[in-house]
C-alpha cells in the first residue's frame, strides 16, 4: 500500500509521444461525448414543456399520484410474467435442443425426423406470435379439456414456448454447424460413437459459442410474455389496461414500461458484456484504428 502511494505521488511514468497523443485523443472524445449529451438533455428539458399540449400529456402519462396508486398492483401482476418466463424458458431450451439435434442427424433413416424438425422451425418462425397464442390459447381449451388443463394461461404459455423454441433451435443449429468437421473426425477416430461425439465434443463447443444470441432471445422472450395477456391472464400489461380504463389515465402503461425496462436493461447489458468477452476471446488480433 505504502509502496503504491509512493509510486503514485512521486513517480510519474514518462509517456511516449504516441501515448501522449492517444491520451489527448481520449480526452477529446470524452469531452465531445459529454457536450453532445448535455445539448440533447437541455433540448429535451427546455423544448418538450413548450409543446402546446404538454400539460395534458403530463397529466395523463406522468401523473405521480397515479403512479403511486398503480405501482403495487402492477408489481403484483408482473409476478405472473416472471412465472410464465420461468417455466417456459427451460422448456424452450430442451425442446429447441431436441429440434436442433434432429435437424443435424445424418442417418438416412432419420429423414422424416429431419423434415419434421425443419417444418416445425419454418412454421413457428413464420406465424406471428400473437396469432399463434390466439390459435393455441383458445383452440386447445376449446377441445373440451377438464380443469386445470383448459386454462388459457397454460396454453398461452405453451404457444409462446413453441414459437420461441423454433427460434432457439436455429441458434443451436448454427452453433452445432460452426464446430469444425475436424473435431468430429478427431472424436470419431478415437472410437467415440456419433452420439458420444455430439455430447462430449460438439455440443459443449456449440453452446459456448451461442450463449450471446441465446441471451438475446431470452431478453426478447421476457417482453413477449406480455402477449399471453391477450387471451385472458391478468399479467402486468393487462393490469395496466384495467387501471387505465378505471382512472382514464395512461400513467399505468408508463409504469409497466419502466418495470419491464428495470428487468430487460440489466439483462441486455449482461448480453453485451458476454458478447464482447466472447469476441475478445475468439479473435486473436484487433485492428488498431
Amino acid at each position, binding site marked *: 500500500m505504502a509502496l503504491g502511494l509512493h509510486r503514485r505521488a512521486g513517480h510519474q511514468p514518462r509517456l511516449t509521444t504516441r501515448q501522449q497523443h492517444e491520451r489527448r485523443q481520449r480526452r477529446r472524445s470524452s469531452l465531445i461525448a459529454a457536450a453532445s449529451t448535455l445539448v440533447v438533455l437541455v433540448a429535451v428539458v427546455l423544448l418538450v414543456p413548450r409543446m402546446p399540449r404538454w400539460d395534458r400529456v403530463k397529466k395523463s402519462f406522468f401523473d405521480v399520484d397515479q403512479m403511486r396508486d398503480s405501482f403495487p398492483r402492477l408489481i403484483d401482476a408482473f409476478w405472473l410474467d416472471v412465472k410464465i418466463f420461468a417455466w417456459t424458458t427451460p422448456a424452450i431450451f430442451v425442446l429447441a435442443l431436441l429440434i436442433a439435434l434432429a435437424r443435424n442427424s445424418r442417418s438416412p433413416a432419420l429423414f422424416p425426423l429431419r423434415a419434421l424438425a425443419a417444418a416445425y422451425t419454418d412454421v413457428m418462425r413464420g406465424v406471428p406470435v400473437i396469432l399463434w397464442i390466439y390459435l393455441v390459447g383458445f383452440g386447445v381449451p376449446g377441445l373440451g379439456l377438464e380443469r386445470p388443463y383448459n386454462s388459457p394461461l397454460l396454453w398461452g404459455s405453451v404457444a409462446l414456448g413453441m414459437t420461441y423454441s423454433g427460434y432457439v433451435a436455429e441458434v443451436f443449429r448454427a452453433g452445432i454447424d460452426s464446430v469444425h468437421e*475436424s*473435431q468430429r*473426425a*478427431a*472424436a*470419431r*477416430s*478415437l*472410437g*467415440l*460413437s456419433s452420439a*458420444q461425439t455430439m455430447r*462430449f*465434443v460438439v455440443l*459443449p*463447443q456449440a453452446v*459456448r459459442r451461442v450463449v450471446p444470441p441465446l441471451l438475446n432471445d431470452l431478453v426478447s422472450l421476457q417482453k413477449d410474455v406480455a402477449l399471453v395477456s391477450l387471451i385472458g391472464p391478468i399479467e402486468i400489461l393487462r393490469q395496466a389496461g384495467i387501471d387505465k380504463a378505471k382512472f382514464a389515465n395512461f400513467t399505468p402503461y408508463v409504469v409497466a414500461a419502466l418495470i419491464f425496462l428495470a428487468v430487460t436493461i440489466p439483462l441486455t447489458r449482461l448480453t453485451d458484456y458476454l458478447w464482447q468477452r466472447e469476441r475478445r476471446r475468439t479473435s486473436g488480433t484487433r485492428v488498431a484504428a
Partner: protein
Amino acid sequence: MTPKVSLRGVNKSFGANTVLHDLTLDVSAGEVVSFIGASGSGKTTLLRCVNLLEQIDDGAVLLDGDEISAVGRDPNPIRRRVGIVFQSFNLFPHMSVLRNITLALTKVLGLSSGDADTRAAELLARFGLAEKASVYPDQLSGGQQQRVAIIRALAMQPEVLLLDEITSALDPELVGEVLDVVRELKGSGITLLIATHEMAFAREISDRVCFLHAGSVAEVGAPSQIFSEPQDERTQQFLRRVRSH
C-alpha cells in the same frame, strides 16, 4: 505371416476426382512405412481409409487379414486399434490436456477415471509434458499441441498409428520436438504409417518408403533405394523438385 495392414486394389474418388486408384500395399506388424508424393497424390486419403474415416469405393482394407472395409462394419471397434494424428492437431479446445487424453479412455475403453488419469499422466511425463496436464490447448505451442495429440492417440494403445503430415502446420523450430516423439515410438512394436513432406525424416525413420503418384504406388522400397537410386521416372522427378527448393 499375415500383414498387419493390407490394401488390396483400393479405389476412392470424391465426385469425379479419383484420389486412390487401384492401390495395393502390405505393411507388416511393427513396420514403419512413410508415404511421400506431391500434394493430391492420395497420402492423406489413404491413411483416412485405414481407420475408416473415409469409406472406400472398391477393393479392400484388411487389418490382420480381417476385411475392415466390408460394407456395414461397425467402425468403432476398429478405430480403437488404429489411431490417427492429424496435420491440424484437432485437440478439443474446451477440455484440458488431461481430459483430451482421458475422454476416450473412459468413454470408449471404459477405464475408471482414476486409471485413465494415471495412464495419461504417465504418457505426459514420458514425453516431457507432465506440467501441462491441466492447461488448455490454446495455451500451448503448436509443437506441444501436436505432442498432446500423439499422446491422445497413443493412450488408446493402438496396434497401428497413422501420422498424417503431423509437422506440416508447425513452425520449423517446433518440428524437431514432434519428430523426436515419433522416433521414440519406432521399435515399440507399433505399426506406423506416416504421410510426410519431411524427406530427411522419412529416410531416417522408415523401414520402407512408398512414393505415391496419382493415387497409386509408383515405387516402394528401402529408404536408401528410394532416395539414392529411385527407379521410377516419376519418383526421380518428384525428388528433383523437392530437393531444388
